[in-house]
């Protein structure tokens, strides 16, 4: 094979194999925990995200290899009715923070692929509006936990 064709093929092969976006360098995560409920019930994931850059960015999705499906939801008890709705984006303000906390934003993790017990660690990868991703390690806590 001609060297230039070889190099071209190699480059294409590298491109085809690489589907991962770059990890975010501006958003940091802390205090990530999951409230584990019995059986196959959906679990709620909570974390504090800090944007260390001067440009606002938004979280646009979540995924986990340990769960069949993950969505970002926001709970509210306005007007006396408890409800939650899926949200497409959660803004993380420039030089600011956003908290996913009980009663507000949370990652809804559904269809666990294996049993998740308190103490286990699970990785949830957030996608951000600037095209980067943020993998975060969440620690599983019991149902009646009050925090990380």
């Amino acid at each position, binding site marked *: 094979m001609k060297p230039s064709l070889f190099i071209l093929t190699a480059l294409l092969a590298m491109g085809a194999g690489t589907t991962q976006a770059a990890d975010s360098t501006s958003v940091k995560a802390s205090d990530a925990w999951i409230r584990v*409920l019995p059986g196959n*019930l959906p679990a709620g994931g909570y974390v504090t995200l800090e944007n260390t850059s001067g440009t606002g960015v938004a979280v646009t999705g979540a995924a986990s290899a340990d769960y069949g499906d993950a969505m970002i*939801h926001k709970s509210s*008890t306005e007007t006396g*009715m*408890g409800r939650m709705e899926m949200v497409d984006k959660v803004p993380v303000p420039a030089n600011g923070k956003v908290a996913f906390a009980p009663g507000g934003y949370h990652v809804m*993790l559904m269809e666990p692929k294996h049993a998740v017990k308190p103490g286990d660690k699970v990785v949830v990868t957030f996608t951000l509006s600037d095209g980067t991703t943020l993998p975060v390690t969440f620690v599983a806590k019991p*149902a*009646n936990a*009050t925090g990380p």
Partner: protein
Amino acid sequence: MKPSPCRRAFLALLALAALLPLAACQREPQPEWRLNDVAGHLPDLDFRLTDDNGKAVTGADYRGKVAIMYFGYTHCPDVCPLTLTQLHVVLDRLGAPADKVRILFVSVDPARDTPEVMHTYVNAFDKRAVGLAGSQADVEALAKRYRSAFTREPDRADGNYEVSHSSAIYIFDANGKARLLATPSASQDDIVHDLHLLTSLEP
């Protein structure tokens, strides 16, 4: 003409006698509730449901206990577990009187929340919590009784669905009388304070 000493004494005695009934009224101190006082505005605790041991129960089964009732469902990953957790913390803070309290978690999702599911669920939070499930009709009757509402949202593509439901927390005394209403934003201090009062009342 000045009244005679006898007459003055008689008048004084009359005045004192007039005040005595008022003093009796003051003997019953009114508790200073911090949560919303709903006494007389909501019906007594009554329902026909199945507890998480599979036993058919009515409101009468909880007489003698202070009952904290609220509606939710097990597939709710955020608000319902948060409320149950907060009530668990409140009961721990209450100490010994918490033995006289029961948390009644009523499911608004009869399709998925069987007594077995409820049993594992409530036991993950607090041993004083009871899971109550029933037919759609029985749960709707209970919700209507307490002017509560719940709506099953449209199914998502994967068949999962959410249920929006009233977030009010109803508190009944040991005689089954509705006494207090708390919202999810009520402070734990306030709930602990009022439960102390409620559990110390004579039934």
